[in-house]
């Protein structure tokens, strides 16, 4: 931690207004509980889109169902709020139809690893050129606090009143083995780190997976709290080489004790768009340019 300086409200407001990132916030107010970590994710995505100069109309937020999946309503871009678990295949459709779009899939741990778990490996192995932001609070918030696939053993919830007996999944390890070409982790309680990671994920060409740890302040008073996470979260070792997949997997395994944030793994390889374009070439067809919803016809 560096030197501590006072922050004045007027200065902060002016800085935010001047930055232009408010243009990326919609007029709808987030529906989340006060103190929820997701507010900082909205801020991070708006900031990243703004800093990267992506026009509002060229970005699409795609989500499933859950607290986190309300996200598209709070960002001023195009969005689809689909069905529980179906953010990734819906994003596949959007990106395939119009590769010029910046597509961001968002969702929670239940949406992504319970009902939607079957879609994650395929988006990753195809290297679909989108960013997947996984908001992990280890709980089902929207249905009022049941266990999720990333809940800890021993967690007591309305559906596990005698304590959850199931092992939590290790999403980072899964994504690494699925073949995601960018895998990182961040923490909603550290907005600076989050902003930087979201930006890097958006900049990556290929499937970028950012796992964001975030507390559910309403339904989890015992496990994944700001206090607990604040003590556990630490940066990846400075010596970690993001090109080394085995090392990344080793670090991911340590997450079961205490989560480390940062970039675990990154590689450059052809995306699904590249593969589909190559196919067109092989078949002797002509690339359609901006397919963008028959984009040629759009005014």
């Amino acid at each position, binding site marked *: 931690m560096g030197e501590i300086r006072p922050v004045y409200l007027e200065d902060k407001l002016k800085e935010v207004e001047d930055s232009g990132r408010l243009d990326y916030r919609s*007029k*709808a107010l987030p529906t989340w509980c006060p103190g929820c970590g997701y507010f900082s994710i909205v801020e991070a995505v708006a900031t990243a889109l703004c800093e990267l100069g992506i*026009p*509002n*109309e*060229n*970005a*699409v*937020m*795609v989500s499933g*169902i859950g607290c986190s999946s309300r996200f*598209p*309503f709070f960002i*001023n*871009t*195009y*969005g*689809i*709020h*689909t*069905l529980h678990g*179906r953010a*990734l*295949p*819906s*994003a*596949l*459709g*959007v*990106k*395939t*139809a*119009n590769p*010029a*779009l910046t597509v961001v899939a968002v969702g929670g741990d239940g949406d992504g690893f319970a009902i939607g778990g*079957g*879609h994650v*490996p*395929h988006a990753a192995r*195809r290297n679909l050129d989108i960013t997947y932001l996984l908001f992990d609070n280890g709980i089902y918030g929207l249905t009022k606090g049941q266990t999720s696939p990333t809940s800890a053993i021993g967690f007591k919830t309305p559906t596990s009143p005698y304590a959850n007996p199931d092992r939590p999944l290790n999403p980072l390890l899964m994504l690494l083995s699925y073949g995601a070409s960018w895998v990182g982790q961040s923490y909603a309680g550290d907005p600076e780190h989050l902003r930087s990671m979201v930006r890097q994920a958006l900049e990556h060409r290929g499937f970028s997976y950012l796992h964001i740890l975030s507390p559910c302040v309403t339904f989890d008073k015992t496990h994944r709290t700001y206090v607990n996470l604040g003590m556990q979260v630490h940066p990846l070792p400075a010596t970690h080489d993001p090109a080394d997949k085995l090392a990344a997997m080793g670090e991911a395994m340590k997450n079961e004790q205490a989560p480390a944030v940062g970039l675990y793994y990154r590689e450059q390889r052809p995306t*699904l768009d590249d593969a*589909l374009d190559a*196919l*067109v070439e*092989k*078949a*002797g*067809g*002509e*690339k*359609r340019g*901006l*397919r*963008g*919803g*028959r*984009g040629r*016809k*759009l*005014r």
Partner: protein
Amino acid sequence: MNTDVQIAIVGSAGDGTIAAGDILRRAMAEIGYRVISFDLYPAEIRGFGKCIARLRVSDEQAYSLKQKSDILVSLDDSHAIPHVGEAREWGAVIYETNSVNPLPEGAHLSAHIDPGQVPYNVPIRELAEKSTGAARSRNIVVVGYIIGLMRLPLEPALRALTGKFKGKGEIAQKNEAALRAGYEEGLRWFRLDDIEFGPPPAQERGAHLEMINGNAAIVRGALDAGIDTFFGYPITPATSIMERLASEMPKRGARLVQTEDEIAAISATLGAGFAGARAATATSGPGLSLMAEMLGFGVIAEVPSVVFVSQRGGPSTGMPTKHEQSDLNMAVFGGHGDAPRIVIAPTNVEGCYRCAGRAFEMAEAYQTPVIVLLDLYLSNRYETVPFPDRPPFEADTNRYADTRGGAAGFQRYVLTADGVSPRSTPGQPGGMHVATGLEHNELGRPNDQPDMHLAQSRKRHEKLKAALRHPGFEPAKRFGDTGAVDVGLVAWGSSFGECLEAMYLAQEEGIRCAALKVLMISPFPVEMATSFLADCKEVLVPEVNYQGQFAGILQMQVPRAVTRMTRIPCAPMRVEEILDEIRRLAGRVVEPQAA
């Protein structure tokens, strides 16, 4: 001189029965005749199951096969013997003279030919062996023989043969020799007077005739309508739609992805539809069940999308290789909530082409999922189709919003007179909005107020009514006698062909009879059905499912008594059975049929 000849070839798997039928029907189509053809083969890839290739060759496009064949060919007597009765009186039965091994009494087809049928015992094996050195080409010999016997030109069959065995040098040569040997033999035999091949009909202007099956026609329609993306998962009997698109779409710069399951396929299809693409997927009953929830999303979020469904026997895994029309309720009502969608069901192969193209137009024009409902029979049956030289489909039927200078939020779901709200797609400035599965207001923001739920529900239902007047599309069509009739048939999907055939036969018997073909089942053409039913003393609704699903929908829309004729023979309905029902309803005496 009118041509209307049906040929059936019966053999065992491995005899090349289906291949022979394929060459023959391609040759007939090239000569310029209209053909309808449906093959029967066992579910197993290998083994000695029964195969039958049937083709009906005529001047005008027939809607179904005939009950009796004019020419019956046996490539395997053990399978052909039970089918001898299929050859009509004075029809030809062609079979092998010399069997390889001495056969027990009664195992040779010659012992089973009915009086009146004309036997042609041909040394098929010998001709094959002499011309090619092996017996494998017996099927090709038979094709040549029929062409020679009927004094038809050989060249079209040669070209069909070349097309089929392209790049297989020696095999192609041998097959050509076999074809010529069969042809020469056929020329030497006496021709039957009452099996006639007249001069082929004149070709339609501005169109070219092609022999194609239902799934291939769907593909052609989709391509001619400018399909941009396809996401699918293999499932019998819809798979060949995806396979054909996989080779054709890249040639046109369009994109196809095989997804991890049907849920992903429909999700991606809706994602692409949201992005403005002409997007489609194809599946069968089990896949449609999986897609039901996402189709509801397409309805509430008003996303253009097309789903081709080829039905097979159900429920559950059911009978993947058997014909049935039992997914109608699923297509029309499947999923939760009040979720109206467009469901159209072509009745023949040409209809598959037209419905496929129009489905994309409708999906965009009314901003909704459109289900095109086929069945195994229609998917796999071949017909000659006059394809127009210029595709008859509109390339873009969207109603776009002008979002320039829109400072306030874009009202994606604004309430309009006809219920269709002008849309914007990603990439269009000022048109940003969220498409959601939650009930929403005009802006697309979540809203669960009763007034808004009512307004949006009404919009989603009312906007579809315009589809009944969609340009270039007839939701229902009447055939047969005009005015009051004794018996009126109401039919949908592939069953309509058999109904029409039965209706014509009933008319020949002096029964006043008409048939209503219903192409659009949701929204239902209530006015047309009402006026048709008002003309009918008795109404017969034949369909291939147990419950009478279509009759149920008909009665829900137009309350009146109808006779449900439901049959589940794992195959198309028999014309003879429908005819018997018509006779019964018309008060005629019906002879009990032998089982």
